[in-house]
């Protein structure tokens, strides 16, 4: 029995919309990312985990408890940042946080306070008049203040400025270090790559592919764009025994793919040339998935 199990989960809304036979096993302490186009079914999956909707068939269990039948019980373990933040009718941020603390039966507010200062959040501001970023921060505080064992995030860094996003990711990493299990959806591949152990691709309700980020990191090839001072050098290099995957004669640029082991060889070869620039196209998760999607069609 794994910590979180998604077994043959189907939620059929008709017209081929919903989730269809999703199977996932998540270990304790694992961080799982979920990507997919808008409308693919990511939020539906999170709603099922949160017990907001009932599966048509199949189920999800957390610590062997069904998330629909034992929804409230399971919430003891969960911290949640929803995709669209909608606060209840209360005056200020601090009032909301105190109210949630009561709902969660939190005894101490110290954790909340430390996160509040980390994110530089003004909790006295009026809930109705907060900016998207402030709302997001407030939601993040609410999620982390109970030190949850399972953290569920639906596009958590939207609305955060880059600085705040850094702080948030630090928070997340810290939680992971402390043993939390994380499920997050995002459109930002970099942050998924940074945090997650595995990333799943959901397309039209079906789980198409799941890849571990370490695999991405261990990718044996590097891609470089090399631009030469003049056409002569450019043409000359084209004769070299390297795997040239793209060439643009107008800017004297070639794109080559080279095995990591072969890099010293490349560099010594390049010594002979006059270069304009040399840049790397990093192999990322995004690239991986783009290639995957291309292969599919």
């Amino acid at each position, binding site marked *: 029995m794994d910590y979180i199990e998604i077994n043959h989960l189907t939620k059929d809304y008709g017209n081929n919309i919903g989730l269809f036979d999703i199977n996932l096993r998540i270990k304790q302490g694992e961080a799982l990312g979920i990507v997919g186009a808008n409308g693919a079914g990511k939020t539906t999956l999170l*709603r099922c985990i*949160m017990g*907001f909707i009932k599966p048509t068939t199949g189920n999800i269990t957390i610590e062997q408890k069904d998330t629909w039948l034992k929804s*409230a019980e399971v*919430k*003891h373990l969960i911290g949640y940042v929803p995709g669209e933040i909608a606060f*209840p009718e*209360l005056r200020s941020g601090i009032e909301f946080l105190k*109210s949630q603390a009561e709902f969660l039966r939190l005894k101490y507010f110290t954790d909340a306070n430390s996160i509040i200062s980390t994110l530089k959040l003004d909790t006295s501001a009026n809930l109705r008049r907060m900016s998207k970023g402030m709302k997001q921060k407030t939601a993040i505080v609410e999620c982390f203040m109970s030190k949850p064992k399972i953290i569920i995030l639906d596009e958590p860094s939207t609305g955060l400025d880059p600085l705040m996003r850094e702080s948030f990711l630090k928070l997340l990493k810290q939680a992971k270090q402390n043993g939390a299990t994380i499920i997050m959806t995002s459109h930002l591949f970099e942050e998924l790559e940074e945090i997650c152990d595995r990333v799943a691709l959901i397309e039209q309700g079906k789980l198409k592919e799941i890849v571990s980020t370490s695999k991405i990191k261990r990718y044996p090839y590097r891609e470089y764009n090399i631009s030469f001072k003049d056409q002569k050098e450019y043409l000359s290099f084209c004769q070299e025994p390297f795997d040239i995957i793209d060439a643009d004669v107008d800017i004297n640029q070639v794109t080559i793919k080279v095995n990591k082991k072969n890099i010293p060889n490349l560099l010594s070869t390049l010594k002979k040339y006059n270069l304009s620039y040399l840049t790397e196209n990093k192999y990322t998760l995004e690239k991986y998935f783009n290639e995957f999607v291309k292969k599919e069609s």
Partner: protein
Amino acid sequence: MFSKPLFKQSCKANFITWLFVTVITCIMIAMVIIILGTLKVNSVQTSMMNILISDTLESTIEEYSMKSYAIADTTLKESSKYYEEAKEFFESQSANMEENEVIIEYNELIASGITDSEARNQITSNKSELEALAINLFIDYYLIHGDMESSEETINFLISSIVHKFSDDLIQSGVSETTQTTLELIVASIDDYLNSTNKNVQDFANQLIPNIMSEVFYSFSVVQNDKTIYVSDYFTKDAIYETSYTSIVSYRAQMAIREEKLWEEFQQTSEYETMTEEERQEYIDNQLSEYEEVTIINLSESLLGQLPEAIANSLTELVEMDVYGLVIGSLFYKIAGLLLPIIYVIMVSNNLLASQVDNGSMAYVLSTPTKRSKVTFTQMSFLTLSLFAMFALLTITSVISLFIVSGGGISISIPQMLLLNLGAFLTVFALSGICFLASSWFNQSKYALGIGGGISMFFLVTTILGLFGSSSIPQAIRIESMNYFNYFTIITLFDTTSILAGTLDYLWKFGVLALIGLITYLIGMIKFNKKDLPL
């Protein structure tokens, strides 16, 4: 089962609305009660009522005057006949009873074991009617007084026996027990009459009866609809005398005309020739006596009596209309006073569930270890308790207001006022259940408000329309067909008419209202538990 933080949240979010509605509604009931209790409600209605009462009393005076006159006429005619006879007979007897023939015979018969009435029959067996009467009176006298005393005393005895017969007849006819003054009046008058030379019975009675009536009726009072009506408020003694006198005169005139006609007709018949004077007079008298009752009824008919029954009833109903019951019972507690609490219920029940699902904030509640049933139960409790608090304050305000104007004529008692408030609470409770059900069922505010609000408002509007056909509106101005609307609203189950009339019909209907509330809340709870939430 109960979530304190959620309850707190609901209180904070809805307190201002609750306060506003409660304060305004309390002010309204206080104003209604105080205004009704201090200002003159309806002067036209009051004067109509007074006219009808005085007319009814007048009709009663006339009726009894004429009846008493008819009795006096008969009694006095008879008694003056035997008075003479008795007087002669008494005077002819010797003063010593022991030597009196009649008494000796009577005692012998009694001693031999015969009953009193048998003895009398024997003694009077071959005597004329008048003689028999005289002898009987003599025996009565002997039994009461023993010895024959002065002639004055004898005459008093005779007169008092006549008076007693007369007042017995009066009492039997329905005029209440004659008072002491009345008896003295009768004695004095009859004494005068019997000793006067010009003995016209009818003129005498015409004088006597109005005197009696003015004595009797002046102290008369009758209880109607928990109110005591004193005749002395409407008539002076002189006025009673006048009314009585005039009615007797009319009666005599009618009977005289009738008698003349009877003679005319009688003279045409064959029997007329064969009868003696006496026989003819007897025949006519018998015929006349049949006309007595009809004539009295005709001459003493009241205003209302002259109208067809349906109209008389609706007029009475109009005059007796319970304005307080109408305004406070029906108008306020079923319509005007319910309006704001219903609006409160529509808005708040939406706020508690549907609105939070619609805008997504319910996600925060349900992202905590809070069961859905806990959510619905807590919100249900908030709604019900806030309503209870609202109506508790309303009850207190209405009872205090009643105290302030006590004596101002408001016909609603404290227990009735408590029941009215309870009924209003149960009605709004039932409606809150319906609105809560709509709020638990739908995921969008617009549907919760539309359906819950729509149904509630529909019920309220149908109650307004149905009011015009209901029994709180007097028949004279009621629009009967509008009563159909009352079948389409649950507010009809709040039976204010029954509460104010003191019957128990309202009780089971209260039960139905409570049941409607409980069932709708329950269904709402179950639905919310099971459905998908788009959070």
